[in-house]
């Protein structure tokens, strides 16, 4: 009930800090050791490289933002020192217990004018660079290439508008396997920040991103690129980046988009131009191969195996790994009227989705073979033993 989990609390040893604390292993100390962490932390700051600030990033925009961030930060620190300094001074020296006698002044137009105008001046001074950066980062003209990014519950679709390449990018299976398993987690370098298919981009090119969404609002965010932009259903927003350095840059969805909002990572792989072109070539070849697969007849066994794969990567986030769904939000596949009833209806809802609900039109996302496989799987797994076998050709004609 209510979505409480039962897996054991305090099972993980995730971090260096954890290891140190965990080396205390005594029944009583176990309880208090977590309270020692703040103390233990101070030397950690000196030795370990803790990310406590924005990265400079790898685009001119992200560097400008970083500069702006540091400027405002120091301005605030300076004002804070002044204000708190005066305050602490009077707290120490103007205490009653020290015999301080209260003066009676309570007004001074001059002073008040000063502390109205000086902050105003500071703000105006900050506004200039801020405006410059803002105008620069909003100017998406003169792009060398365009990538359309579509948010889905809960994955990203990337369309290379000039190349005709299109694919989905999901949370990597390795991370999914680690959500409930601390050992797996500790083996991963990028828990929850790895995908099954990366967005590959060339360095040195001015890339325009077009963001939109298929369902709810998402937000595409990669810090090192200095890009965060909401993906609104029915509208297109744009942003741009020109990446300086090859490398892998990670981010994730930054707008609450439902249950798996926390499991919607973004990985950008920036390659030198030549490597990028090779990658493009490979993608185009692979796309052709996939189209060929829809022609052949499949055995039930193969369909079930492929279906399970597709189900767990594409459907399980809503309908559950074991097909139980979430009552009132996502229907169960176990004993579902549609998945055990009329095949036509089943194919129809998977192909076309159901508008006005979270159920997407998977006809646009999956090939005939994958659709046939996943439908076959749903009709035979979870105790739905209908015995039906769906061939890609059936899907093709149903489209």
């Amino acid at each position, binding site marked *: 009930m209510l979505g409480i989990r039962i897996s054991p609390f305090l099972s993980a040893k995730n971090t260096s800090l954890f290891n140190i604390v965990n080396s205390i292993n005594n029944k009583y100390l176990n309880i208090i050791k977590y309270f020692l962490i703040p103390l233990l932390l101070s030397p950690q700051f000196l030795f370990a490289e803790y990310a406590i600030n924005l990265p400079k990033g790898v685009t001119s925009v992200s560097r400008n933002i970083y500069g702006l961030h540091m400027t405002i930060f120091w301005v605030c620190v300076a004002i804070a020192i002044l204000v708190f300094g005066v305050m602490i001074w009077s707290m120490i020296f103007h205490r009653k217990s020290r015999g301080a006698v209260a003066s009676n002044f309570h007004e001074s137009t001059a002073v008040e004018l000063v502390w109205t105008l000086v902050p105003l001046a500071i703000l105006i001074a900050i506004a200039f660079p801020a405006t410059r950066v803002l105008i620069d980062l909003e100017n998406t003209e003169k792009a060398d290439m365009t990538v359309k990014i579509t948010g889905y519950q809960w994955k990203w679709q990337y369309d290379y508008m000039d190349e005709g390449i299109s694919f989905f990018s999901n949370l990597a299976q390795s991370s999914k396997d680690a959500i409930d398993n601390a050992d797996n987690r500790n083996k991963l370098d990028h828990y929850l920040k790895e995908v099954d298919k990366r967005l590959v981009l060339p360095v040195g090119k001015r890339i325009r991103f*077009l963001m939109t969404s298929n369902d709810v609002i998402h937000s595409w965010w990669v810090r090192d690129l200095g890009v965060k932009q909401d993906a609104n259903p029915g*509208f*297109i927003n744009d942003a741009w980046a020109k990446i300086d350095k090859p490398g892998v840059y990670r981010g994730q969805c930054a707008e609450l988009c439902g249950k798996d909002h926390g499991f919607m990572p973004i990985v950008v792989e920036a390659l030198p131009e030549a490597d990028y072109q090779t990658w493009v070539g490979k993608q185009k070849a692979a796309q052709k191969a996939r189209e060929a697969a829809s022609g052949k007849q499949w055995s039930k066994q193969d369909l079930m195996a492929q279906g399970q794969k597709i189900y767990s990567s594409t459907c399980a986030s809503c309908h559950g790994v074991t097909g139980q769904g979430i009552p009132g939000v996502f229907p169960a596949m176990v004993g579902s009227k549609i998945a055990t009833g009329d095949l036509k209806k089943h194919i129809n809802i998977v192909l076309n989705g159901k508008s006005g609900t979270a159920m997407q039109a998977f006809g646009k996302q999956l090939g005939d073979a994958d659709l046939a496989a996943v439908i076959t799987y749903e009709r035979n797994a979870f105790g739905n033993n209908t015995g039906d076998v769906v061939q890609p050709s059936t899907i093709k004609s149903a489209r």
Partner: protein
Amino acid sequence: MQSRQEYYVPHGSYWPIMGSIGMFSLLGGFASSLHGNTIGTVAMILGFGVIIFMVFGWIGQVIHESEEGDYNLQVDNSFRMGMGWFIFSEVMFFAAFFGALFYARELSVPWLGGAGNNAFTNAVLWPDFKSVWPLLNMPDNSNFSVPKGIIHAWEIPAINTLVLLTSGATLTWAHWALMNKNRNQLIAGLALTIMLGIIFLGLQISEYFEAYQHLNLKLSSGIYGSTFFLLTGFHGLHVTLGTIMLTVILMRAIRGHFNKERHFGFEAVAWYWHFVDVVWLLLFIVVYWL
């Protein structure tokens, strides 16, 4: 009637808690009935009944206290402020819907048609969509009832404008009569105003009928239908309420309740009526005319 010197603080009362229970039952019942729960519908009707009972009981008690002379001018002033600021809150409620209309007309529909920084929105997502207002063809018509036409300003709406403006005048006439202690004229003025209110509502209903039956213009006709019906609908609801309140005032006037100095009840309802009038003028201009 002798009024007290001191500010009147009423003793404990059951009306508020009754109002809360009624509201809970009405709204909770409504929410359940939206999802096909028949007990919900029953709870909703019961709750509505409780609220009606509470409103009449509460206001009845206030009238009684007023007639007993419990209220001094300061109390009267509190009531005035209460009513004034309540009307202001209503203004802000309407402002939200006027804002939505403004946003749709000036921003979202043009954007969907490619205006401003949204060239790609139109080119990539809605290539066939053209921005016009009133919006009869939605970006994607498939889930909406596509209207065949719109309600024109210079037909029923114009008549209704006249009706409401006249009703404002008749109400002022009644007030004037009250100040001049002319009770018959007061009653006539109120009755005329109520009649005009009812005529307005009748015309509004026939207009809705026309929209639904002949024009296929419905709540589900995209943003045009949405803003049209919510704005005019909430206005109509206010006219209905105003008419009911005027009827109560008429009853009280017949019983001889108000006098030259003390007639807050009358004034409160008059303010309300004029507010509803002004909202209509705005509606007429931005919803029907422009």
